[in-house]
């Protein structure tokens, strides 16, 4: 079987090293700018790249439009999580949160606005921050990660107001239940915990792996992804992807997906999920698989839907994971093109 061999370019040491870096790059997080025209992506080398979605989606897009507008070294360790406010991009990696101004980032050589580290218990190893969550009503940020705690930080003053303890192993993901307001967190210990922000106490615990329908012991018990729709919650990871009714804590629908899912989100009347395996999966609420759209990375770690009202022409779904590419889906049915670091 003959494979098409690409022409071997004479490669010096620098080119080989760069090529190897790109091959082993993982993009962990994405975030859309408040104007909706730019996408930030953070990778495992601690770099953040800003892509111009409006340039890449326009009719005169060339190959250079699919490259980042600017790339800079943001953290020393991997950038596991990013989130955007009206004017800032907040990125978190090895134990610290940094804030960047969106308008400043497009210029070269920008510096972070501020950098905060939540108070950790241990000093032997700096725990990573896996998830960031914005709580607009309080104007605060919730961080969670390697030290098994949820920290709340007030965005105006920068002080850490609350610490929520309860998880026995590190936390993977967070979700906000707006009505209450409550925060859901899923972790390596296999439990989804609900916390009331006003009383700072755990209100409900769902131990997913204890339910026989959804547990999959050979994958482990870890909860990798969470999404909530006030009354409903969908979570996945080691156990199967399941839709839960929160008040009764019962699993209502189990989605038949073998590979562990790393990101899940509600979209209109569908549930989109991605994880190990090339495809972005679209599920009906009844549990049927509506579509499986393949991407370009062998495994996906994050999905981002650009629903900013200011840029309706950039309304796309972007998926990134175990490669240096971000797939852009203009229509949920197929992959339009890929942006690349």
């Amino acid at each position, binding site marked *: *079987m003959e*494979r098409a*061999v*690409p*022409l*071997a*370019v*004479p*490669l*010096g*040491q620098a*080119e*080989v*090293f760069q*090529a*190897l*870096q*790109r*091959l*082993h790059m*993982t993009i*962990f997080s994405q975030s859309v700018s408040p104007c909706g025209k730019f996408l930030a992506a953070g990778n495992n080398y601690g770099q953040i790249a800003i892509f111009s979605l409006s340039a890449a989606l326009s009719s005169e897009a060339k190959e250079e439009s699919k490259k980042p507008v600017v790339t800079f070294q943001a953290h020393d*360790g*991997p950038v*596991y999580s990013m989130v955007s406010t009206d004017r800032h991009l907040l990125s978190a990696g090895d134990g610290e949160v940094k804030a960047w101004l969106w308008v400043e980032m497009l210029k070269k050589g920008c510096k972070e606005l501020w950098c905060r580290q939540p108070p950790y218990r241990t000093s*032997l*190893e700096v725990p*990573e921050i*896996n998830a960031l969550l914005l709580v607009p009503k309080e104007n605060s940020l919730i961080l969670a990660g*390697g030290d098994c705690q949820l920290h709340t930080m007030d965005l105006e003053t920068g002080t850490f107001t609350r610490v929520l303890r309860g998880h026995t192993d*590190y936390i*993977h993901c967070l979700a906000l239940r707006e009505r209450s307001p409550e925060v859901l967190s899923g972790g*390596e210990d296999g439990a989804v915990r609900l916390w009331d922000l006003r009383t700072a106490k755990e209100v409900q615990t769902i131990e997913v792996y204890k339910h026989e329908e959804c547990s999959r*012991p*050979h994958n*482990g018990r*870890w909860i*990798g992804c969470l999404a909530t729709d006030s009354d409903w919650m969908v979570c996945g990871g080691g156990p199967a992807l399941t839709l839960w009714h929160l008040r009764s804590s019962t699993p209502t629908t189990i989605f038949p997906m073998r590979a562990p899912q*790393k990101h899940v989100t509600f979209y209109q009347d569908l549930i989109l999920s991605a994880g*190990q395996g090339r495809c972005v999966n679209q599920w009906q609420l009844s549990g049927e698989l509506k579509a499986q759209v393949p991407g370009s990375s*062998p*495994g996906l*770690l994050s999905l981002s839907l650009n629903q900013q009202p200011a840029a309706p022409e950039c309304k796309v779904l972007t998926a990134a994971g*175990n490669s240096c590419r971000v797939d852009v889906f203009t229509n949920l049915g197929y992959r339009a093109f890929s942006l690349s670091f």
Partner: protein
Amino acid sequence: MSSESSKKRKPKVIRSDGAPPEGKRNRSDTEQEGKYYSEEAEMDLRDPGRDYELYKYTCQELQRLMAEIQDLKSRGGKDVAIEIEERRIQSCVHFMTLKKLNRLAHIRLKKGRDQTHEAKQKVDAYHLQLQNLLYEVMHLQKEITKCLEFKSKHEEIDLVSLEEFYEEAPPDISKAEVTMGDPHQQTLARLDWELEQRKRLAEKYCECLSNKEKILKEIEVKKEYLSSLQPRLNSIMQASLPVQEYLFMPFDQAHKQYETARHLPPPLYVLFVQATAYGQACDKTLSVAIEGSVDEAKALFKPPEDSQDDESDSDAEEEQTTKRRRPTLGVQLDDKRKEMLKRHPLSVMLDLKCKDDSVLHLTFFYLMNLNIMTVKAKVTTATELITPISAGDLLSPDSVLSCLYPGDHGKKTPNPANQYQFDKVGILTLSDYVLELGHPYLWVQKLGGLHFPKEQPQQTVIADHSLSASHMETTMKLLKTRVQSRLALHKQFASLEHGIVPVTSDCQYLFPAKVVSRLVKWVTVAHEDYMELHFTKDIVDAGLAGDTNLYYMALVERGTAKLQAAVVLNPGYSSIPPIFQLCLNWKGEKTNSNDDNIRAMESEVNVCYKELCGPWPSHQLLTNQLQRLCVLLDVYLETESHDDSVEGPKEFPQEKMCLRLFRGPSRMKPFKYNHPQGFFSHR
């Protein structure tokens, strides 16, 4: 009738008067003037209009008379005849009138014609006169223009300007008083001056010619003197040889080499000069020598007279050989190919000695028709090497110098003009002939000062010393590093084939004390086989698996777990790291496409290679990478989370000290080893 006859007689009378005997002509002429009845004169007096009326009236009368006669005739009777006779006489009179009128008409006509003719004659005469005058005018005008256009030869001569003339010319020529006013005189004076000047210059020219002749003769004499000097100097040199030897100054030997060097083609000469200079200045371990036959080199450049003699001889030979069979087309083409690929009989040999007494022998050749240089390499070591099976290609003369600079694989000719030459004789590519001719690497061309721009084919041989000099040092250093790294690999391969990863003591700190996984197999793999492997697709797609690389397969085992590692060794090792791709067979097949941790392991070895380089010149990179691979496999197997549903203990109990087993959204295992604390953590 009487009237008729009187009428008749009238003219007759006059006429007969007009015709007297000839003797009395003179007198009668004058008389005639008075008596002569001139009808012409009468005609002048009569009015033509009235004559016309008369004519009409006469015709009418005639008609009337005729009508009356007819009446009378038809009536008949006696006195009719008299009446008719009367009328007849009247008709006759009328006829006479008509006749006269006719005559008058004729006369008038004739007069008119005569007058016209006269006038016409006059006009013609004037016309002729006009023509004559015009012709003369034209002629005169032509003459005038000719005169005006006349250029005298003197105007073609460039005369000096007026001011100069007055300044320079001596007064007896310039005669200012006369010439200022009179342009004619002025021009004459100027011409005179011109003539003077020309005469003077002609004299000077003759003088100079004779000078030149003299000087040429002097030069001839001096040349002869110098040529007689040369044999005497030679004899002095011969005499001084024993003195040189006594004083240990082998000028003669160097001199002999320079002598032979004179016969080298320009690129080899540049290489020789630069290499000798570099050897003397920077690197005492470099030695340069010239090999080959000087006579053959001299024979390449025959003087033209000899070739003419040869032609006449060869003509004679050709006549004989036409009777023999002509060689076949294939043999002819073969001969042409051999001719095109012919090497210059002289070659330059460079010997590079390395620290461990191994020597790299380089022989440089020059292909005359293709205008490129090639090199053949050989490595000899102080002690005899036992070549392990997998190390076969490491030191082979064909590939030891491949890709010294990135991309310089030496299989294609660097001179773009050669392609056209190859097409003529049917050579597809030079790579078929590199084994016998040597490799035409780009750095070889640069050492010989040959510069090939990419666009235009080169016609003339420009051997540039500055190009050679700037590359000499870098290339020599690269050559030495290359030989040493290859020899180091050679030794390491011998050990790897026996399943031992040779880690030197100064690299031990990179790894924990106890490593359980073992290297079981180390073999070479062909390029095509590497490309067929299912877990190497990413490397192939990224263009990192070219055909100039060497490929190997390593197998690491622990218990039931088998880890296959496909290795790409770039000829630029160790500045360019080897690239590993892994495939683990344990509880299913795991590669970087379905297991994030395998991807992390590859990253540890490929991307973080700089930690594993060890002390310069980092010959330990490959072995350190292999040892790290074993450590990574240990960590992977021991930190695998236990599946509660399956009975039995874990196959690999955890022995490594780890702070945390999983970290981050992709749940990475702790692959980073911390020294000297000895625990594993995450990057």
